[in-house]
């Protein structure tokens, strides 16, 4: 049974005060908070198993290796990848995207097209721009509409035999829109293009099935789903991962080295050069366990309820405008008060102990579309409450009064 008060007890940080007020944490889309079970897993690793993995003959090293590889299996099971070697552990979403972008630089040529969406985070724009500069390929953009949804008829016009790659986020970080990735993947595959889905914002809310989606690459960060920072996943179909060259050279990723020639290790080690974030990988597994114990259906239902409640309450404030009004969205509300800068609102909310994000959310093209400098973004998680939303609404009213 989903009981938010019980769940909150798992998160020690939720009982702290900020500026003398109880913390209201609504910056979950930037990073999620960490439950005690995950913190314990970090302590347990360093207290009992800390050793380098994959190369030691001693017991500690073998135990640490086992834990790390068990975590990979948990991640594989969670995202339903066909093989565990299709799960590459990276430092996070940005690293995962760069790894793929780098790999494609030897596969693209002038005249090829890459399609991204207008809703992308900068980390899913810049690597592809760099890739286009290197290869002479052309970057094309699926436009968005006023509701913050991708215009699919425009996508149909953009896609052609020249399209080699399509990159779209599963859910927009700035607006919360859930994109029709099933349609995008199907269309892209019809012309033989590969698809990378940035799942950083989706992984805290839904449980993607990479095989059912038939997606070529899917990338996430652990810290968005109750895990630690500095670790993430690149899922890639075996055939694609075998086709891509290694990203970084170093230990772990080799089979044999002489000064004449090096042969690379098999998947997944080919892409995991150097000592990995061992604790991070293991604890990523613990975070997945934690979230599955709560259950993604329960999480989605509860968060939708919070979203509906907050939307209704915030819209009672005169002059408040919500950006991103798709019917198909997650628990993210991006908004502004008329004639008031989002930075000012965020500063007053912080004084009240309420953590929100302000600015362009690393998605400047979206802000340019709406002709605004940025927004205030409140993003809700399954451990937030309606009482906290009431505090936000009161805080926004106070900010409006002080700043008008």
């Amino acid at each position, binding site marked *: 049974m989903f009981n938010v008060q019980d769940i909150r007890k798992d998160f020690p940080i939720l009982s702290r005060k900020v500026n003398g007020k109880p913390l209201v944490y609504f910056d979950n889309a930037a990073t999620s908070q960490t439950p005690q079970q995950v913190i314990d897993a970090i302590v347990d690793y360093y207290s009992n198993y800390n050793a380098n993995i994959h190369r030691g003959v001693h017991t500690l090293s073998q135990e640490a290796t086992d834990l790390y590889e068990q975590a990979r299996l948990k991640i594989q099971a969670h995202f339903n990848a066909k093989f565990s070697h299709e799960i590459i552990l990276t430092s996070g979403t940005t690293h995962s995207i760069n790894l793929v972008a780098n790999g494609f630089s030897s596969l693209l040529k002038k005249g090829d097209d890459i399609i991204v969406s207008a809703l992308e985070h900068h980390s899913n724009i810049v690597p592809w721009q760099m890739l286009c500069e290197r290869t002479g390929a052309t970057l094309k953009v699926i436009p968005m509409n006023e509701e913050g949804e991708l215009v699919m008829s425009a996508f149909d016009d953009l896609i052609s035999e020249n399209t080699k790659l399509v990159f779209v986020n599963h859910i927009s970080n700035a607006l919360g829109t859930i994109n029709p990735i099933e349609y995008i993947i199907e269309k892209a595959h019809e012309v033989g293009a590969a698809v990378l889905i940035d799942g950083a914002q989706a992984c805290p809310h839904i449980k993607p099935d990479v095989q059912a989606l038939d997606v070529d690459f899917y990338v996430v960060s652990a810290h968005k789903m109750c895990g630690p920072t500095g670790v993430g996943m690149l899922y890639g179909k075996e055939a694609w991962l075998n086709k891509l060259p290694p990203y970084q050279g170093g230990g772990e990723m080799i089979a044999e080295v002489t000064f004449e020639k090096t042969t690379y290790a098999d998947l997944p080690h080919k892409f995991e050069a150097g000592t990995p974030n061992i604790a991070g990988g293991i604890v990523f597994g613990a975070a997945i366990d934690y979230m599955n114990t709560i259950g993604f259906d329960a999480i989605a239902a509860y968060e939708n309820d919070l979203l509906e409640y907050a939307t209704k309450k915030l819209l009672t404030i005169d002059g408040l405008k919500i950006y991103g009004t798709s019917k198909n969205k997650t628990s993210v509300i991006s908004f502004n008060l008329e004639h008031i*800068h989002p930075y*000012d609102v965020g500063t*007053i909310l912080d004084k009240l102990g309420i953590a929100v994000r302000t600015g362009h959310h690393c998605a400047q093209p979206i802000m340019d579309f709406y002709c605004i*400098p940025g927004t205030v973004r409140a993003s809700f998680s399954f451990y937030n409450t309606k009482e906290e939303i009431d505090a936000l609404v009161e805080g926004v009213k106070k900010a409006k009064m002080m*700043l008008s």
Partner: protein
Amino acid sequence: MTIKDIQNEIIDEFSMFDDWEERYQYMIDLGKDLPLINEQYKTDSNIIKGCQSKVWVHAEMKDDKIAFTADSDAIITKGIIAILIRSFSNQHPKDIIDANTDFIDKIGLKEHLSPTRANGLVSMVKQLKMYAIAYQTQLN
């Protein structure tokens, strides 16, 4: 008045307030009274980098003293720049170069001094001092 005198005056004014709300309200009011920059100087090259909000600053030398004008699209940021400009404006470049900004801490706005703070108070101070260094070089 010297920069130190003005800063002490500002400390006195802020000491009347009991809580953050009153302090912020006063800062916002100071922002509203900021000597506004002439529109022609609100150019991209006059924007101070490192601010989440936009801040434009213009400096002019009159009788060996620097007069600053500024604007921002965020009102709290405007209040902070107003406080800074009040203490630095109509002063000799050398005094501006030598001045410190410890008074910001004393008026209860310490959180804005953090280098990671998105409003870029640190960048603002740096920019005002850069103007002072440039004018000082002209005087030498």
